[in-house]
């Protein structure tokens, strides 16, 4: 009995002193020292379920590759980088909920991602409310427009750049095509794309006639009426900003109509490579623009990105948004190191004007409006090359435009950047 009591007392003592030690560890040691061992958390929002999963899953994977590269090289200022990834289901309401969760529950330091501007723009007010940096990997120019915010960045090519580059490419490569038509998804991205394409034609003083403009619902099942109406308009050239699943459905349904023989030029401003992979042997020789094209740039980083991706996941890292997610992680890492802290206002200052290298080339973040601008934007015409598992750009058709030339001029953005 006595022995037992002693044991219990000793037990209490041991536990008690243990708690004391733990307490000292928690409260006694300066916060700074503890923070040094804590990982830096990046929250990521992309779409990994539903029909857009084919874009979101590779986006998550690309960020994981960036995480691996950074952590293998010692992390960020000696701290590990930890990604917290959430599915936004390509729904603004879900994106907003997950953004809150990332900030409030996971206590991430920064947020980046989104495949659709519909979701990303819905998250902007939260970035302002929580005073958290949010780097968008979707394309709208609105992130950096009249409602620009010190907390919000758009890392990559904007709708304006992609659409104008498409127009410039057509002026150079299909100068005889004068009757143009458009088929675009019926939401902000599709409408803006079509306007910027026409603006691009105007920039070049290229005299063209627009014989048909059509907007199809996102996730449209039956493109045949749109296809027949386009053919009926006798357009020689067709511009489209349909992306991934929608573009694949369109091409598959248009092909049996002889659409790609009747139309002399067909140009797409987004997700071209993913479309080529999805279509396999069904692919057709159209002009494509992709935010990331794996086979253009010969650099150490690009080779490392592709080989690590292939080793970990198989296949090519071809999804457009993937490259932008990779770029977001890299930009944040560099900015934190430049600032010497994860303190938001200091990281914002470090991001502004940051020049850095990503697999597709060099990027620069324009300080005035937080717009990411690529050194060059690339287009090409797809052809079959037995060396590759899917149709690739014919290297003879490579067409590049300097990003600065097609970025929306600062005078037109309407952005008046506030102080954080």
């Amino acid at each position, binding site marked *: 009995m006595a022995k037992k009591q002693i044991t219990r007392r000793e037990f209490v003592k041991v536990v008690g002193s243990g708690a004391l030690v733990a307490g000292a560890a928690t409260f006694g040691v300066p916060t700074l020292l503890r923070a040094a061992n804590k990982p830096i958390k990046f929250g990521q929002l992309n779409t*990994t*379920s*539903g*029909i*857009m*999963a*084919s874009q979101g*899953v*590779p986006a998550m994977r690309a960020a994981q590759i960036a995480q691996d590269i950074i952590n293998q090289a010692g992390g960020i200022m000696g701290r590990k980088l930890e990604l917290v990834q959430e599915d936004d289901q390509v729904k603004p309401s879900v994106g907003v909920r997950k953004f809150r969760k990332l900030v409030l529950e996971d206590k991430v330091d920064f947020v980046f991602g989104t495949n659709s501007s519909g979701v990303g723009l819905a998250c902007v007010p939260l970035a302002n409310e929580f005073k958290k940096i949010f780097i968008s990997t979707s394309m709208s120019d609105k992130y950096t427009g009249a409602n620009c915010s010190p907390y919000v960045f758009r890392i990559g090519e904007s709708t304006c750049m992609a659409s104008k580059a498409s127009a410039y490419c057509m002026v150079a490569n299909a100068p005889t095509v004068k009757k143009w038509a458009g088929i675009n998804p019926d939401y902000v991205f599709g409408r803006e794309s079509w306007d910027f394409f026409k603006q691009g034609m105007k920039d070049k003083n290229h005299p063209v006639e627009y014989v048909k403009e*059509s*907007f*199809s*619902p996102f*996730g449209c*099942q*039956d493109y*045949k*009426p*749109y296809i*027949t*109406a386009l*053919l*009926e308009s006798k357009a020689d050239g067709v511009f489209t900003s349909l992306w*991934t*699943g929608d573009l*694949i*459905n369109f091409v*598959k*349904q248009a*092909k*049996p*109509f*002889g659409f790609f023989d009747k139309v002399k030029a067909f140009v797409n401003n987004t997700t071209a490579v*993913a479309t080529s*992979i*999805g*279509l*396999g*042997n*069904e692919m057709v020789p159209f002009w494509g623009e992709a935010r990331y094209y794996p086979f253009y740039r010969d650099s150490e980083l690009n080779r490392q990105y592709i080989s690590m991706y292939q080793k970990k996941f198989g*296949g090519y890292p071809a999804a457009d948004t993937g490259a932008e997610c990779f770029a977001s992680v890299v930009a944040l890492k560099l900015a934190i190191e430049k600032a010497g802290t994860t303190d938001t206002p200091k990281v914002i200052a470090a991001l502004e004007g940051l020049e850095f290298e990503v697999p597709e080339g060099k990027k620069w973040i324009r300080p005035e409006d937080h717009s990411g601008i690529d050194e060059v934007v690339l287009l090409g015409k797809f052809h079959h090359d037995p060396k590759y598992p899917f149709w690739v750009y014919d290297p003879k058709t490579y067409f590049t435009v300097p990003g600065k030339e097609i970025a929306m001029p600062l005078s037109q953005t309407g952005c008046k950047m506030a102080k954080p």
Partner: protein
Amino acid sequence: MEFSYFIYQLIIGLSYSMLLFLIASGLTIIFGLLNIPNFAHGALYMLGAYFTYFFLHSLPGVSFGIALVLAVVSVGLIGAFLEYVPLRKIYERSHALQLLMTFSFILILDDATKYFAGTDFLSIAIPKLMDGSITLPGDREMPVYSIFIIACGLVVAYLLWLGLYKTRLGKLVQAGTANKEMLSALGINVPRLFTLVFILGSVLAGLGGGLAGPLKAVSVGMGETVIITIFAIVIVGGVGSLKGAFIASILVGELNTFGVVFFPSFAMAFTYILVIVVLLTKPEGLFRTK
């Protein structure tokens, strides 16, 4: 507008209508007899496309036709499992609960598909025999595959009509749709009838998916994009009515096609205006037999 263009768009619309009918016919028969709103019907449609791709690319020398048949059989087996194991436990429960369970099926089947097939888009080629088009007056092309879809829809409609109105089993299905208690009172094996009908419905969903394969990006979630339209058709036609599903499919397909051609900015609305008009004037649907 020229008359020939009108006829041309009518045929284009019909090919969409018939694809919708293949999927909607299965759903309406299940909804009518088993009285469950089977949201997983879209997932079975998706599986039809995936299985067709799988058989076409994994078995050597298999043609599209054989791959399609194998796919349809596979989807039928999955349907049998879904009915026999979980679904029959909840026939007497509320629609809300049934909806929840069939919705869970979608998520499970979607994730299973993602696990086995990945998230990349897959592409099924149009069978060689049906690649290309025939040229109609006015230099307009009509894809052979679209004509084939129309033919499939009409043949399936005819076979279902024969089965439903000319066979004993079909009469039982009709009787059960109208009054279930009467069937069991007469000593009919109702659970077995339910299983058979659920398999038939699944087979039709799988057939729709397999036939849609060459026209679509085969992908996880392709079922969700079609299921709402299919439910609209079933509601407009009248739950359980084959004739209703047929007519409503044609209405929805043609409204969509002519909407896009003439009033593009309202094209989406037409289907749902039709739904609202029918719900207000004939809440039981155009052809409900009850």
